[in-house]
């Protein structure tokens, strides 16, 4: 009965804040609504560095993609891609390697619609409405088959998304499933929100704010993120604060890379 369609249409409610649009706001985008900005401003009151944190993640994404491109990866699966703004994965990848393939996946229907409008006319990139918590639907989708060739290495990008996957959703199993589905030489980049270096009270407040969105938060520390890479060979320098991961410039790391609130790493499938 695997062929049974999921007849559960997503509801679109723009009166409910969305994590994807809040992230766009942190990055200085205007792809957001009042409800998103209102909630985002609560986050910024807690974390005045919010935009810097988002930017650190964004910057890590770019470095991870470039690292994968250098390793010969020519196709990318970006899950939790959010609202596409310029400097997206397909722009970076296709600039470096014309014809590079990208499949974006997000569960936010508005983010997906926006990606679709943006990707019109790009034969090498597509978007799928999907949920990382149901990886089989992503892997078996016609969009994935249309863009990616799973017999060739794939760069899987899980940037600032796994902290929306609770332990009950078994993120370890999800990652193992993705690993089994891709060819040797594939890469996995993860950046993950963490409460390391912050007070429990602050993190609880942040979690409380995000409860208003469709995607509540789960924090993990360096070790927990390392566990998620089981079966992947971690590239140097392993799991570190995202600004510390192969910075292009020394001043990007700064005196306190923990400001980023995110740890990240890139692994390779042997």
């Amino acid at each position, binding site marked *: 009965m695997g062929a049974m369609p999921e007849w559960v249409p997503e509801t679109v409610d723009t009166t409910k804040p969305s994590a994807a649009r809040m992230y766009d706001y942190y990055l200085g985008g205007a792809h957001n609504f009042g409800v998103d900005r209102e909630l985002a401003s609560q986050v910024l009151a807690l974390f005045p560095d919010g935009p810097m944190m988002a930017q650190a993640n964004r*910057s890590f994404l770019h470095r991870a993609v470039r690292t994968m491109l250098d390793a010969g990866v020519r196709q990318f699966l970006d899950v939790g891609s959010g609202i596409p703004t310029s400097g997206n994965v397909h722009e970076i990848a296709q600039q470096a390697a014309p014809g590079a393939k990208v499949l974006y996946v997000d569960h936010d229907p508005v983010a997906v*619609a926006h990606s679709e409008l943006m990707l019109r006319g790009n034969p090498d990139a597509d978007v799928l409405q999907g949920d990382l918590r149901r990886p089989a639907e992503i892997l078996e989708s016609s969009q994935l088959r249309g863009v990616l060739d799973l017999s060739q290495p794939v760069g899987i990008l899980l940037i600032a998304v796994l902290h929306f996957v609770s332990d009950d959703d078994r993120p370890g199993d999800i990652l193992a499933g993705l690993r089994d589905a891709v060819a040797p030489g594939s890469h996995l980049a993860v950046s993950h929100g963490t409460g390391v270096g912050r007070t429990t009270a602050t993190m609880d407040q942040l979690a409380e704010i995000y409860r208003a969105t469709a995607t509540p938060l789960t924090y993990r520390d360096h070790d927990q993120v390392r566990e998620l890479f089981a079966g992947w060979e971690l590239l140097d320098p392993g799991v570190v604060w995202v600004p510390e991961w192969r910075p292009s410039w020394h001043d990007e790391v700064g005196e306190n890379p923990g400001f980023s609130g995110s740890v990240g790493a890139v692994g390779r499938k042997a």
Partner: protein
Amino acid sequence: MSDILAGVPDGAQDGAQDGARDGARDGEPPDLAPGLGPDLGPAATPDRAAVDLAVFAWEWTRVLAGTSWVADDRTVVADRLTRLTSRLAGALRAEAFAPEDGIEVGEALVGIGYVAPDALARTVTLLQERLLAELRLDGAALEARLAQLVGAVCLGFTRALRNRTLDEQEAIRSSALLAWQRAEAALREQTLHDPLTGLPNRAGFARDLEPMTAAVATGTVTACLLVVTDLPSVDDVAGREVGDAVLRALAERLRSRYRAPGELVAHVGREEFMVAAVDHPDATDTTGLRLAGAQELLSAPVAVEGQRFVVSVAAGLVARPADRTDATRLLHDADRAASWARSRGRDAVAIFDGARDAREADDRELAADLPGAIAAGSLVAHYQPIVAPATGRVAAVEVLARWPHPRQGLVPPSRFLRLAERGGLSDALGRGLLRQACRQAAAWRASLAAPPTVSVNAFPAQLAGRHTPGAVAEVLDEAGLPASALEVEISEQSMLSDPRVLRGMADLAAFGVHVVVDDFGTGRANVAHLAELPEHGVRGIKLPADFLARIGPDGSACHDTTAGRAVRVLAWTVDLAHDLGLQVTVEGVETAGQHDLVEALGVDLAQGWHHGRPADAEATTRLLRTQR
């Protein structure tokens, strides 16, 4: 943005590196011509100027880093900022101030991706504090020029940011709208599907069939409704969840078998699946052949939760030209055919028959209209003459109900009596006719010299009721008619159906009403019952048309044929009845030959088309008046 990149010194790009930056910082300030001001030409040495531009651009890049995300690698950004710095330098040095340079630089910042308010603030500070010094420019006039330039940069930046913001707002709103429309469409789609099996439901079937039939100009649509007749018992015994699982398994079988173009499977009721096939160029078999296996497909055992179920499936088939197919009609017709199949037994198949369906539809209409018609007294009595063969006179008339139906015309009793009985309306119907007949009989008694006896058919339900004799007496009283002028016919079969009927007959007979047994010899009764009839007050028997039908139209036959033997059966029956003191009426007298036969056999009364068909009261009155 390429337009504003024009005019960059060749060396600028190469100089935009870490080493160059350090070199620039540590190197000697370039020599500047004394009195260098806005009115002066380009910087003294191109190399030195390029290094200065790069130094400033790198500082600018560093200051902007962290205000917003950076789309490109930092060297690429520094390169672009070097070109912008060159543009600013040009504006400072130009003879007349042109705000375009500053505006376009501001716009370019936004274009690169520096959209945070902080990016503008830091840029303004940097320009004011460092630009003149880094470019080795000096002078009060330049200060004023710089102020104008910064203003222009702010203008360009805010204008571009505003446009970009509006664009992005528009984009996110159209995205939200698109997403919302999608969700709506998905919801609509959901209403066309059955959540249990994921198959189209009734509405979905209609929606999906339409384009299939439209795709073939000529050809046939064949549809098969499969009714899992055992499902209610599966639900009852094993539970509804198990019933659901069985349905899902069956749905999956149909789905995987009928997935070719021109084939459609739907779940149109809890235990009903619809499979349709349209003639398709790629199909090798006819639509009928393709559907032939559907029933068998479902009859194979289903395993659910360790239990095995074998369900029986009734199938209703319907086929029609594709260009005249309406899904609702198709569903209805297949439904009818399936219900005929069900009534035939397990795993039966029935093919839709338009004539039968029309008949059933008419019957349903009559059943719906009958109560109102009876209450309104719309059913009218017609009268068929009953003649004494010897004299040819009309001795009696049989009252036959007719229903002038507004759509179906004059409906004979064969079509509505059963409906009346089933609907518990026979008492009301019988009483209404009795009242009409008695009134008519009274009118004839008042106007005719030899008025006929009026013979009314009684329903068993009427006779079984305890108050029957009283009710009849009431009607007779009301009409002013003696009991002896009324005859009541009760069929042999009804008579034996209920002991209370026999009691009712006896009561009526005691009251003086003439009671006769109708359709004699056609029920379960055997001849032995004849002996008991007089004690129940029966005065006569009516022999149905079957007796004469076997004899034939001319009324005579050779001794040793079926017809000949039938004559002897009739003769014997008449003699026997007479011997028991019962009057004999023969029905179905259609020819003069038959009339002669019954007369010769000494039959008391004859009835049939030879003597007259049933007619309304007016025509019957005319007929009666012609008799002396």
